[in-house]
């Protein structure tokens, strides 16, 4: 393969666009981990469900796929609330591995329920009105869907920063993430904070799923790998840090796409995880992580 400057620039740009979806997923995961100290391996399953909900909404009602993102966010938030209430809350305060175990059980449940419901729609994409249109600038081209995806991710992230920095519930979330016992003594309803945190995190996964469905083909099994990538990203960026997740997501997307461009698709996961290990060996708390206790 011939490596050209414009080819490389295009790879970087596409890496950033792919990174955007990971950023959305990773931010939700990071929020849940930061506030609740919960490691949810089923987070990517929420992305998968979000993609199918957006697909069904678009095909059944004929809604614009970019509007169906809102539907996906709302429905996945509801599913998230159910998970928090009926599964994760039950094992809170026991062994930390029990929560991971529940999330592994949920992977079985979600993936196979989705297979039962949607196996007839294998490897589909949400039809976008911008299909096939792309912007070219000096040999570098990118399709409008990816540009719009980047804009949407930016808007959602600004909204999230507003929520955590400027609202009362955001203050309660930040307090709970620092010391849940002390927050409880200060009169914060920690149960309610957990509930809202999980709903917000799930909504972000739903949005990520809808965008994933617009950009890529999907099927009931797509949830597993993005979860792992999202974990890698929040670890690269540093646990509990939103800017960290953004930088981590961009780095990850770029590393993955560049590896695929230079070495071939099979290497993209290996190189991206090599980046993760390199970052951790140099800085054990991630790029933007707070110092451990």
């Amino acid at each position, binding site marked *: 393969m011939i490596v050209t400057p414009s080819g490389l620039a295009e790879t970087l740009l596409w890496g950033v666009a792919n990174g955007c979806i990971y950023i959305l997923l990773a931010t939700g995961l990071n929020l849940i981990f930061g506030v609740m100290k919960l*490691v949810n391996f089923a987070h990517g399953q929420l992305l998968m469900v979000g993609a199918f909900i957006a697909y069904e909404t678009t095909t059944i009602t004929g809604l614009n796929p970019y509007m169906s993102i809102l539907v996906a966010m709302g429905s996945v938030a509801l599913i998230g609330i159910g998970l928090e209430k009926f*599964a994760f809350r*039950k*094992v809170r305060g*026991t*062994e930390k*591995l*029990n929560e*991971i*175990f*529940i999330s*592994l*059980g*949920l*992977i*079985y*449940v979600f*993936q*196979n*329920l989705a*297979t*039962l*419901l949607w*196996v*007839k729609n294998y490897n589909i994409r949400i039809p976008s009105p911008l299909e096939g249109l792309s912007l070219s600038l000096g040999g570098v081209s990118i399709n409008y869907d990816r540009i719009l995806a980047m804009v949407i991710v930016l808007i959602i992230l600004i909204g999230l920063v507003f929520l955590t920095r400027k609202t009362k519930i955001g203050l309660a979330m930040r307090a709970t993430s620092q010391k849940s016992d002390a927050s409880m003594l200060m009169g914060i309803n920690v149960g309610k904070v957990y509930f809202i945190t999980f709903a917000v995190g799930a909504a972000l996964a739903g949005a990520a799923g809808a965008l994933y469905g617009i950009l890529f083909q999907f099927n009931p099994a797509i949830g*597993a790998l993005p979860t*792992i990538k999202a*974990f*890698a990203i929040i*670890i690269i960026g540093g646990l509990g840090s939103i800017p960290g997740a953004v930088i981590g997501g961009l780095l990850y997307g770029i590393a993955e796409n560049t590896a695929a461009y230079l070495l071939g698709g*099979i*290497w993209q*996961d*290996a190189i991206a*995880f*090599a980046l*993760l*290990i390199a970052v*951790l*060996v140099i800085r*054990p708390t*991630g790029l933007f992580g707070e110092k*451990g*206790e």
Partner: protein
Amino acid sequence: MMIDSFRSRKLYYALAAVAVVAVLPLFVRSEYVVGSVFTLMIIFAVYASSWNLLAYSGQGSLGHAAFLGIGGFASALLATKMGLPPIIGLLLGGLLSAGIGLLIGLACVRLKAWFLAMVTFGFSVIAVTIISQLDPIFGGMIGFPTTPIVQGVVPFYYATLAIAAISIGAIFLVMRSKLGLAFKAIRENELEAKMIGINTGKYRLLAFIISTFFAGLAGGLYVESILFVQVAIFEPYFSFLPLIMAVIGGLSTMEGPIIGSVIIVSIDSFLPLTDKYLQPLSPLFPGVSNVGPPLRLVGLGLFLILVVIFLPKGITSLLHKAYDYFREDTSKAKKNGKT
């Protein structure tokens, strides 16, 4: 003295368990059940115990499949391509796995639990890529056949049992020794452990080496039991398996991973038999050709979730409760008899 009697009691239970497992093939004549179910239970009991030891020292691994795979590939390559006796290949596979475990452990000895888990996971992904790219040595995506330490289903079963009994016994001794006490201290509070003079870095590395050695050994046994080695052994499924087995059985106990392995392997082997009873439900899901597998996997997922919600300390805790209840009953009966 109490400790002595407690220890000897545990030893008797362990010997009784081994004896029961040893006579099983006399009653179960099916080669499939002995070779593909019982043997697998024993091998995964070793694998889950090795993972459990690492968790005992407060280090979570989500990439243990890497060490299972290294042990499997190394022992198979040594036996088939270098012509070494399979038992030597098995041991060298374990040692190689421990050596690589040492390198990974060195790289992440400063990391907190979940960071370490991600590094091990990342390593297993990297291993898949390297193995599947180096076709001439590792057989690419297809893999290659292996030779077992002994021919025949039943002899291999006994060989596996002997190796597993020694391995699990060794892991148990480590957990019960001063070393195990240090692991426990690190798990409970690393900072405090450091304060009372435990060299936490050294002990965490030791836990890593011992755990990865036995994981490699289990990998060698696994590929010999299925007579084939393939890159699929590195898949996340095999990394999550020991976690599921240890948690469902009971974390940080000796019997937990063993019970977990028996349960999960039984479910994997016998649950597919229920597929035909699930067929009447197929009109509910149009377009699905075979509703059996997805439906039963949904059931498995719900089962796992319910077990952990109602028995957060695993199935072992239920057995302990039953045992205590029974003992209380007999001691009460004795008292009543006296008065």
